[in-house]
């Protein structure tokens, strides 16, 4: 996560790096340039063969697929005259070129597999390869969401089992499995709350959100039709309970709290907050993006929370994949859970957990919620992110009761180690108030004039590290949010600390070399202003460059 360039940095062409002999290809040994597919492919090339596209066969393989092309009707047949005639302009590449194109491109990326990726709030931890293997078992990867239930019992069992552990780990009543990511889970939770309020005829209009909240919180509340108001924070970086209490009232539908919060701090008064909100007739939504810091240490259900999403791609390490997919199951209290979307999973009085779809909804609602079906409907076409469920369950079972707790402890230990190792060179606004949770926050105060967080971030790139989250949360000036995660060794942390310390010292001293960073990356700093001013979002078929570019 990241904010737009707030430092006002503008690109300028620096002196060509001396000593760098230019190459004719633009390549620099293993740092390889790669053109667009539109520049190397064409409409007549394909990297896929089709049966029948070969000349008549001299012999044929056994177990053959589609029969010969003579069975093909003329293309007009049964197409209502809608045949596509004009070229689509989708360039193809042979398989060798395709493999090379994407392999070369991949090498222009940083990734967890390469090194420390301390992006605060994002939880970039090791993605076990066992989980990838499990998700690819044909019994999970190659089943259709509309197959008859009797043919997918194993898949439903898997969802049930994951749901069981999510409920167990959070101490809640049930879980809506279908949300596709954290933000979708937020929406799910807020809609459950809204439905619960509406069911009691209580039309409230405001959702309170701390200033430090992730952007998805206010966006979600607005998406669900609520007005958003800010809750102020204390000097110590926590929700100001007194201020919150004074704002509560009959118009407040819900309060959205992130806990641990986006400053990496646990909200010690969470239970008091919940009690106050409940007393005022509202509900408490918890943004569970940082659940990884407390899994096995405390159960949100014990703190009075009504709804909380869990980013399986954070706490349970399903890979981020360069932007997704994620998965955002929402654990719910019984009160709001009865309105949850289907499929929904809940634990009945006998302790058994059930996966409820449309067909079981009636019976289940009658028994468990003592009423008719009140689900507010579907949030997505099918069951949710099955591929992520498999990975998350594999992760949970692999870690187990001892390992998951250790995850929380080690992630917190690593963050505090970084906090205490750097607070003398980087201002740590909340360090005075005690330990942090899984991430350490610093500000750019104390840097020389004209130097800001972005300069530190870009210099880290040259050192072989991914930068921390920049300029978020908004409550800290030039925030640098560092989340090392539990899958980093002490040696990695130590190397990171040395590098960051040296950069911080340069930023304090106003060392101009920081402004040029990164110098070793595939690209120097990019002009984001130009990109936004004259957006070029697709390649136009005949390349009439709208901005002057030097072809790589």
């Amino acid at each position, binding site marked *: 996560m990241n*904010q*737009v360039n707030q430092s006002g940095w503008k690109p300028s*062409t*620096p002196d060509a790096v001396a000593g760098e002999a230019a190459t004719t290809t633009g390549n620099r040994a293993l740092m390889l340039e790669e053109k667009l*597919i539109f520049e190397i*492919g064409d409409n007549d090339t394909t990297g*896929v063969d089709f049966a*029948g596209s070969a000349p008549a066969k001299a012999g044929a393989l056994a177990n053959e697929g*589609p029969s010969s092309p003579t069975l093909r009707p003329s293309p007009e047949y049964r*197409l209502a005259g809608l045949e*596509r005639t004009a070229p689509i302009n989708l360039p*193809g590449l042979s398989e060798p070129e*395709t*493999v090379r194109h994407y392999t070369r*491109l991949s090498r222009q990326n*940083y990734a967890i597999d390469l090194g420390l990726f301390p992006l605060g709030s994002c939880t970039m931890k090791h993605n076990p390869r066992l989980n990838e293997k*499990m998700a690819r*078992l044909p*019994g999970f990867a*190659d089943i259709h969401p509309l*197959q*008859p239930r009797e*043919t997918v019992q194993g898949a439903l069992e*898997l969802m049930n089992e994951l749901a069981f552990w999510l409920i*167990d780990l959070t101490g809640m009543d049930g879980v809506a499995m279908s949300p596709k990511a954290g*933000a979708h889970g937020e929406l799910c939770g807020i809609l459950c709350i809204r439905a619960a309020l509406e069911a009691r005829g209580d039309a409230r209009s405001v959702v309170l959100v701390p200033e430090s909240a992730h*952007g*998805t919180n206010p*966006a979600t509340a607005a998406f*669900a039709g609520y007005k958003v108001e800010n809750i102020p924070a204390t000097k110590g970086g926590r929700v100001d309970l007194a201020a919150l209490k004074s704002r509560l009232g009959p118009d407040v539908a819900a309060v959205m709290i992130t806990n641990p919060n986006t400053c990496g701090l646990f909200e*010690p008064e*969470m239970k008091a907050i919940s009690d106050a909100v409940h007393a005022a007739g509202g509900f408490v939504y918890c943004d569970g993006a940082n659940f990884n810091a407390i899994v096995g*240490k405390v159960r949100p259900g014990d703190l009075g929370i009504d709804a909380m999403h869990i*980013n399986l791609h954070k706490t349970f390490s399903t890979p981020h*994949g360069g932007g*997704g*997919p994620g998965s955002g199951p929402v654990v719910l209290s019984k009160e709001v859970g009865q309105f949850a979307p289907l499929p929904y999973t809940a634990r009945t009085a006998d302790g058994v957990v059930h996966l409820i779809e449309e067909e079981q909804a009636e019976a289940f609602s009658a028994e468990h919620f003592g009423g008719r079906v009140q689900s*507010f409907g579907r*949030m997505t076409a*099918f069951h*949710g992110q099955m591929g992520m469920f*498999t990975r998350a369950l594999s992760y949970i*079972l692999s870690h187990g*009761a*001892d390992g998951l707790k*250790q*995850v929380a402890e080690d992630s917190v230990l690593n963050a505090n*180690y970084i906090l205490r190792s750097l607070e003398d060179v980087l201002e740590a606004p909340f360090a005075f108030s005690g330990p942090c949770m899984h991430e350490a926050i610093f500000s750019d105060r104390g840097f020389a004039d004209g130097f800001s967080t972005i300069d530190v971030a870009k210099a880290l790139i040259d050192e072989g590290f991914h930068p921390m989250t920049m300029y978020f949360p908004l409550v800290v000036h030039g925030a640098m949010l560092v989340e090392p995660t539990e899958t980093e*060794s*002490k040696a990695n942390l130590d190397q990171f600390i040395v590098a960051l310390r040296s950069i911080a010292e340069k930023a304090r001293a106003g060392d101009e070399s920081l402004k040029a960073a990164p110098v070793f*990356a*595939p*690209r*120097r700093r990019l002009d984001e202003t*130009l990109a*936004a001013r004259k*957006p070029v979002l697709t390649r136009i078929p005949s390349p009439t460059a709208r901005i002057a*570019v*030097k072809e*790589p």
Partner: protein
Amino acid sequence: MRYLPLTDADRADMLNVIGASSVDDLFIDVPEEARLDGPIHGLPMHATEMEVERHLGALARKNMVAGEVPFFLGCGAYKHHIPASVDHLIQRGEFLTAYTPYQPEIAQGTLQVLFEFQTQVARLYGCEVANASMYDGSTACWEAIGMARRITRRTKAILSDGLHPHYVSVCRTMARFTGDTLDTAVPMLDAGTDAERLIASIDKDTSCVVVQYPDILGRIADLQPIADAAHAVGALLVAVVTEPVALGLIKAPGEMGADIVVGEGQSIGVGLQFGGPYVGLFACREKHVRQMPGRLCGETVDAEGKRGFVLTLSTREQHIRREKATSNICTNSGLCALAFSVHMTLLGEKGLRTLAEINHARAVLVAGRLAAIPGVELVNDAFFNEFTVTLPVEARPAVHAMVEKGVLGGVSLGRLYPDDAALANGLVIAVTETVTDADIDALEAALTEVVR
């Protein structure tokens, strides 16, 4: 524990540096009474790879695998052959374990892929611009309605009866809270689409008309008349495509006047996966781009003037605009978008067209064979790779009966519309390039028997 690098000695050293006597000192903000002691209750201790494999393997074996039986399911998720190189490439650690490309200098790989993906989607859909992906087709569909509302400042959306009922359900969920009005209907087992009803319903309050193409019964019809009618009153046409392979053979919605085209990309590169993760595709006119939800990648230059790519127009997005964002979406479907893009690059226009032709030809063949079974009637006049038949019996039990014979023989309309008895005998059958002649024989035999 194999995933945790810290040793006990490390932990002790680090606590020492921190000045804490135990790790519990770091959790002092957690109220004493809520703190859990000892290992997590209920959960077994950590497990070996072998144990986890055996456990999950046993669950996996309880499912009937699409690739191992005659398989004819569609309705929003399709079984296509995915070249082996696709999975190899998306497992490159540099793609798999990267974050959203917020630091463009070391994320040009992901960014260039997104730029190529956006271009592929835009061209496939016949649109000017596309975004970097949504969760899936159903959520993209709702986002399109919201976008139409923002553009037209109207709140009535007219949904075709051919729109996937699960997509309708997602829209209904949201509309209930946003105040949008949805005009919906249930399809009839007719060859014709509901274009006339749609056109007749359009009025000056209409924000958009939403039409699926091919529709839930596999029907295809020209969208231009609907587009014209909508445009005449300043409303938009939203087209929804659940089977992108179709657009290798039939006209793109963008070519027929659609203003926003959204859909499911699963068919290309992604695989069935019991419904997710999939990848939502979203394209529109350039003039509307600032109302678009989701991430956008754009071209720019670096400090040396070299071409490069960045995420752009982020002032539409939650992390900048917060409650004023066009959507709350953050994490999207990056890796599935990559899979889509790799597969599409392998196909290229030539491959996509051939693939689409084979799908259509196979479907025509199967439709003919099934329609010859006594009592079975073909509903569609025109279709791509999916069509509907009516049976002389209820389709839902028929599907279960076919399972007994080891055939996954289609999706019953009873499953999709449990409350509409008029549709109970309808069966939707999808036929792709993965279907062999033997599979067709098996389906024909099974269906013949169960309708007898």
